[in-house]
């Protein structure tokens, strides 16, 4: 059953923190993978992750971090490291927007 994790948008914004969060999202969608397969430079397609699975992973990440990836053409990443950079940047943008709005 695809079910986004509970909201965790208060997660630390450090790159390591984001990476760890992404690993958990990937494992939630793809329980057939293991954590030690998810190195920073690992291409997801080389692990056999399909486009459908990537779509589900992106959904999880968007929900957890309260960011929008898909509608902004940012879902073209291939590795966990690339994904982490995108998420970290969008998290920062979201937080800045929140501060301005406040």
């Amino acid at each position, binding site marked *: *059953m*695809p*079910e*986004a994790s509970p*909201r965790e948008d208060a997660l630390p914004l450090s790159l390591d923190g984001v990476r760890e969060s992404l690993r958990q999202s990937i494992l939630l*969608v*793809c*329980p*057939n993978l293991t954590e030690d397969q998810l190195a920073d430079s690992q291409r997801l397609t080389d692990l056999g992750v*399909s486009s*459908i*699975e990537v*779509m*589900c992973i992106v*959904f999880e990440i*968007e*929900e957890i971090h309260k960011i929008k990836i898909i509608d902004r053409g940012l879902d073209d990443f291939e590795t966990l490291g690339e994904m982490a950079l995108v998420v970290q940047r969008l998290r920062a943008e979201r937080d800045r927007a929140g501060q301005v709005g406040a």
Partner: protein
Amino acid sequence: MTATRRPDGGHRVVVTGMGAVHAFGFGVDRLWRGVAAGESPIRPLEIEREGLTITIPAAPIEGYRELDHFTNQQRLMLDRFSQYTILAGQDAVAHAGLADDREGWREAAIILGNGGGGELTREDAGVFLFGRRAGKVHPLTVPRTNHQAAASHLAAAHGITGPAYVISTGCASGSHAIGQAVWMIRHGQVNRVLTGGCEANIIFSVAHAFSAVRTVAKDTCRPFSQGRTGFAFGEGAGVFVLESLDAAQARGAAIYGEILGVGMSIDPTDQVQPSHEGPTVCLERTLRDAGRERADVDYINAHGTGTILNDKIESQVVDRFFGDRKGGCPPMSSSKSQIGHVFGAAGALEALICLKALEHQTMPPTMNWLGRDPDCVDLDVVPNAARAGSLETVLSQSFGFGGVNAALLLSAGV
């Protein structure tokens, strides 16, 4: 030489493959072992969702693990009801010895019955939209909720290009689907159909929905019994390979039964309260379609939900319909006391049980029976233990919400 045509010229329709997923596990043999042994795996089941809980009597498929049967991508694409259908369908196709017959499947049809479709996925969407106020739903919500998802998968697996659709008439869906498949073969539209029913709705929102309409049992399902208070939830799928007798004999297929007659009707009175008229004309049409008499029916597998109204009305209908024949009403039992109410799969799983009953010359029991309910007519409900019987022709009844009724008359075959 055996006639392959009916007196009206239509093709005789036989069962050449059977597959099932149910509370006892996998396969038709396991289904029958559980039924014949009087197993009743119904138990109180607590369902949790978003921190809320509800407890209902249910016979879930214990220990089911999606990745044991499907790739991760398939798991993501398929709601549980589709998974069960595909597993039962593959089981039936293998049982028929047709797993590699892509050429033969090309012109076949798929007719499935299902009540609610992707109920779990729909509930997920509700959680996202109204609970978490996420402003979006999972990107696979549409393919997962589609009633026809399993038909697509089975078509791709076997190269099926014939007519394919899903009939959704609640608790009668499985019987309606099988009936439609029979008619398609009988009238020469196709000579092979993959058909049956499925359901997977033991979830928080559906438990509340049926509780609200006061049809869920307080403890367990005890059809036609003292102390009955409603149904217990079940889940699973039952799938048949049906073929024309011509086609089955031409390929030397094993034949597990014949579907002699199909009857359908709708109550002309009320959406939720069953009537006598609808089920009665359904039974009349079933026997007429089969060219059989009331005296020919040796056993009835009842709709038998255990709800206050169904059992009372169903026992009265059967008594009025069969009571004046020599020997009185045939024995009638309810398999829902064992596998729960499997809604869109109920008619299919119960028809499978009927075929196994014919094979083993044994009538399935009505379990959890505590004694006669004075509200029900005093029929032989085969209480609490299966019983040997001389069975040539058996009837499977499905009387659903909305007043939709369907019945199948089956025999052991040619």
